[in-house]
């Protein structure tokens, strides 16, 4: 899957600037390395899932108005673009996550100007990716965007002499196809059915575009909120973890990890004009698969056989949040205090404490719960290679032995 923007000047400019960061401590360098290297986390998983679910759902049996779209290997070109756009949005926020607060820097982080420069490049790169995503969304269904609106205007003039349809604006505001049909029939006596069909198809096309753009834009909004929550660490002195229960954790993780994939999968269905039920199943798959993927990655520090003592883990990750909820806040704080030596947290010791509790097993159960939900959503899709691939992804992220 090649991103069109890879061919641009800006990206080589970015690459050049990122190279200047080598030797500094700016997080962007780590992010960039992660994106370039072939690693487990760089499967471009989201894009892949969108492609697979598009293929698994196939063309809509109900709606034949997609006849004009190109289809290659069972996937429409607009769905392919959507997969790219999803990856662009994900990567953009990944890059923006790496911004550093200048006022919190310590001497060990290196010169201020390096960090400032790193921030600059991180913001610009992220914005560049977002701009490409927005442009991609605008171009999704149209090779010639001007044509769509003006052809709509032209054919909105009914083929009779009777004064009926006056304003195009009224036409565009009509919400659904059946209402369009009756409105047009009532106001244009003698209008031919195929003309009515043509107009309503164009309207549906515009509505689909609107819906897909709105879905992805709202996914971006969710993602931003999710990243915001990730960043907010309680400012209280004695606690370095949030006092959140697992249900709040789930809400925030849906925003930061689930929403984008869920809404993209739904949007892919919308592009192929599938009905609301199919869209919902795709949404559910995306959501639950993303959740189990996140829990799986949270569990890695606790289930790997050989972990070096210096491996740190996120104190707001699933197993830790569950451990805290089961143990109770006070005992958890006590464990943190006990694991601190001269103000520094001994992660190895804390890890042992967590492994001794029920947090890890609860997290594994939660991961499997979401995995099963994802599989259940897939059942409504007809059996196919693509569907099996999607099932295999779930199996891979829920396997812990």
């Amino acid at each position: 899957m090649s991103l069109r923007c890879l061919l641009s000047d800006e990206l080589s400019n970015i690459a050049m600037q990122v190279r200047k960061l080598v030797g500094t401590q700016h997080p962007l360098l780590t992010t960039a390395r992660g994106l370039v290297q072939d690693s487990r986390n760089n499967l471009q998983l989201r894009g892949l899932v969108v492609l697979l679910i598009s293929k698994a759902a196939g063309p809509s049996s109900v709606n034949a108005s997609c006849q004009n779209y190109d289809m290659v290997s069972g996937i429409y070109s607009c769905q392919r673009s959507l997969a790219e756009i999803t990856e662009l949005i994900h990567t953009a926020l990944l890059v923006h996550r790496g911004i550093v607060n200048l006022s919190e820097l310590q001497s060990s982080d290196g010169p201020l100007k390096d960090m400032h420069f790193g921030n600059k490049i991180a913001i610009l790169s992220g914005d560049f990716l977002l701009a490409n995503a927005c442009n991609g969304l605008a171009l999704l269904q149209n090779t010639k965007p001007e044509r769509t609106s003006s052809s709509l205007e032209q054919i909105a003039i009914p083929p009779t002499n009777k004064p009926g349809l006056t304003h195009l604006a009224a036409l565009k505001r009509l919400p659904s196809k059946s209402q369009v049909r009756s409105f047009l029939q009532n106001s244009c006596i003698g209008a031919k059915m195929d003309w009515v069909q043509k107009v309503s198809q164009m309207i549906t096309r515009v509505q689909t575009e609107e819906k897909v753009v709105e879905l992805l834009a709202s996914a971006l909004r969710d993602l931003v909120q999710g990243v915001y929550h990730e960043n907010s660490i309680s400012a209280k002195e004695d606690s370095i973890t949030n006092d959140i229960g697992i249900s709040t954790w789930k809400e925030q993780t849906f925003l930061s990890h689930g929403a984008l994939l869920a809404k993209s999968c739904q949007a892919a269905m919308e592009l192929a004009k599938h009905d609301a039920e199919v869209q919902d199943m795709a949404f559910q798959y995306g959501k639950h698969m993303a959740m189990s993927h996140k829990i799986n990655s949270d569990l890695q520090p606790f289930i790997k056989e050989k972990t070096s003592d210096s491996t740190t883990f996120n104190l707001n990750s699933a197993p830790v949040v569950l451990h805290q909820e089961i143990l109770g806040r006070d005992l958890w704080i006590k464990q943190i205090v006990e694991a601190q030596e001269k103000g520094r947290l001994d992660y190895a010791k804390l890890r042992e404490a967590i492994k001794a509790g029920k947090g890890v097993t609860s997290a594994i159960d939660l991961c499997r719960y979401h995995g099963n939900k994802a599989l259940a959503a897939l059942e409504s899709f007809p059996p196919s290679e693509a569907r099996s691939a999607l099932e295999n992804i779930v199996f891979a992220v829920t396997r812990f032995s």
Partner: protein
Amino acid sequence: MSCFYLVKSLTSACLNMYSISRLHHTTSAVFCYSKPRSGEKYTDPFQLGRRYLKGLYEDIRKELLISPIELKEMSEYYFDGKGKAFRPVIVVLMARACNSHYNNSRDVQASQRSIALIAEMIHTASLVHDDVIDDASSRRGKHTVNKIWGEKKAVLAGDLILSAASIALARIGNTTVISILTQVIEDLVRGEFLQLGSKENENERFAHYLEKTFKKTASLIANSCKAVSVLGCPDPVVHEIAYQYGKNVGIAFQLIDDVLDFTSCSEQMGKPTSADLKLGLATGPVLFACQQFPEMNALIMRRFSLPGDVDRARQYVLQSDGVQQTTYLAQRYCHEAVREISKLRPSPERDALIQLSETVLTRDK
């Protein structure tokens, strides 16, 4: 590049143009002055525009209703109604001017009003990010988002405003309009990239400067004008007029902004001056001054990074005719804007747009 030489030959041929009253004086950095209002004989185009924008900022804030309160506060920070609302005013006036031209209707469609909101939101999102990039401490007379809440959150606030703008854009449901405005988002980023790099060749520098000016400032205005004209009327000739007006006014606006960075003082502007020099940016006045003082080349090339460079450059500019030349160039762009918009049928809004382009030249903040 050819524009640069055009201006040079024109200025040397028409020196009496400098006597046009609306030029800024070059002042030393020590004191500042405020320009007297140039005659109350015509209605303020801003007043006319603002009438149609009642509730603009409340409506923008409604688009930003999200749960983490702090994130909401950060995103709303600049939508306090105290900004100039320059872009929304132009958009709304253009909407009515186009509607009047096409079918004598003076009402602003809901979708056209949305464009005003969206334009202001896109503009603000880019400002929030720019302030982090430039490590700016104040804007519009108050502290920047990055100084109050930190860089990480400021970047997220900018992303949030952008996503809200995109959602509002999607709801308009016009694919042409969506394309037009997403082009703006791309241009804004490309403009920032242009600013990162610099050109060695003196001749290329001016073209580079104008291109950056278009992308960073004029594109938003030009394309928002075009978008409302598309929504109001099907005639592509009108769309082009709207676009050209917006583009020319936008460039003029930025040129004057660059002049004010030298001639005004920080209290009036609400942000520190010589800001461009301090960021290593060579703007119009500097590029013109360099013609007279070739010593400036070295300073430009090293982006005023050595101690004393900023002050030296400033002195060169104030001693040269850089400010006058830039102002003259801005006037040319304004005249072009007026020429274009005059092709529309007369209406109060069309006349307001003409007056507005003149206010661009006479503003002092």
